[in-house]
């Protein structure tokens, strides 16, 4: 048997270019430690994030998604983050109803100066994902009892 490498969750972060992305940048330049599990996609505004992106990320096998934007009131485009908030809220609730673990859909407000908060968010989300385990929502091979057996590649 091959030696098992400990499973590490992979998550996508949709970060608003004005706040959260700058925050992540600052976390990097100020050498804040946070898990390397996140893949960052820069978006012009958290309001750009169509729930479809979240679903597509889950479909591609990512274990979780973080949508992050400016704090309420700070949106570069005035209202983008408020709209994102409504969208993420219904997406999260709806996916939970369908049976997706709540830890997989996460959201945060991170400003350009909050490098520490960004590191915290990524750490917390990664820890949460480790608890729920790999995303097998869209994998084939369901057992009679409803569990899935497919190993991740």
């Amino acid at each position, binding site marked *: 048997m091959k030696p098992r490498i400990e499973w590490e969750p992979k998550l996508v972060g949709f970060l608003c270019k004005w706040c959260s992305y700058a925050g992540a940048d600052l976390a990097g330049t100020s050498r804040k430690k946070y898990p390397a599990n996140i893949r960052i996609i820069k978006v012009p505004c958290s309001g750009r994030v169509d729930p479809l992106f979240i679903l597509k990320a889950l479909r591609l096998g990512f274990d979780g998604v973080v949508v992050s934007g400016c704090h*309420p*009131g700070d949106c570069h485009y005035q209202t983008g983050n408020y709209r994102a*908030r409504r969208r993420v809220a219904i997406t999260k*609730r*709806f996916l939970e109803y369908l*049976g997706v673990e709540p830890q997989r859909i*996460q959201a945060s407000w991170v400003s350009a100066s909050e490098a520490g908060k960004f590191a915290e968010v990524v750490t917390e989300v990664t820890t949460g994902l480790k608890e729920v385990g790999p995303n097998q929502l869209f994998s084939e091979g*369901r057992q009679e009892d409803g569990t899935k057996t497919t190993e991740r590649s």
Partner: protein
Amino acid sequence: MEQKLRSEVKALLEQGKVDWIIGFEPGSLKFTTTPLITKDKNDAERLVINPFIVNNLANFLTEIMGRVGIVAKGCDSRSIVSLIQDNKVAREDVVILGVPCTGVIDLSKVEKLVGKDRDELNDIAREGDKVTIKVEGKKKGFPSTQVLFNHCLACELPTPKEYDILLGEPSPPIANLAAQERIEKLRQVAPGQRWAFWEKELSRCIRCYACRNVCPACFCQRCFVEETEPQWVLPAPRWQDNLIFQIVRNIHVAGRCTDCGECERACPVNIPLRSLTREMYDIVGELFQFKAGMDKDALPLMTHYEEKEAEDFFR
């Protein structure tokens, strides 16, 4: 009601107040009606109102040019209002012929009750709270709550609030909790099993898009499933892609869906789609106290916001 409808329609067309009429005429199969879309005042005589007027005619509003007179049940009127909110239809371009609705008969429930297909039944008659079904020459009576569509049992607006002409006395909501039973049951199951449930249900989806195309809230010129750059989902019936299609469709129509139940009725492979749409309807109601199509002056759900709302899960 039918007589009033016909004379009103005739008058509307004669006086040139509308260019088109959308209503119901008898269908070609037993116990069916079919949409009648016409400019001809002589067609007014074909219009009917009966317990089988299933379609949500608001669906046709976005594709017909000109002023339209439209026959609308409570749920249809909500879809029309929702389209007005979204600026897809101008209020002054529609003449709403409101039908106080007492519920529409779900033929698949009838089939289950009597164990016969719809074309084998002799007659279905509705009188108040009772429905009499004649099969093989024998009459059987049922309380109407047993044969109405679930979305009718859960209906909050049987009589249109927004109308130009009301065709009868307003009828009260039925408010029958049995309507929610299926969703409640689903909510009780463990998350993994719930996902498995949807996996199984959606695996028979044939991607005919009837659910999307009967939906008045789905008015996009081009749906994301048809995009090729990027290709979000495969344009082929595989459960993963079917499920993403349904999930995203529901999210996209959140705040527009009036729980008219057309998607589930149209589905040729019996996917319980209303268990998705109704849940979204409830989520929107709970989080934002928003009910689609109740107030034509309200802003569409996704275009506005409150300073403080739905934030508990934000870090």
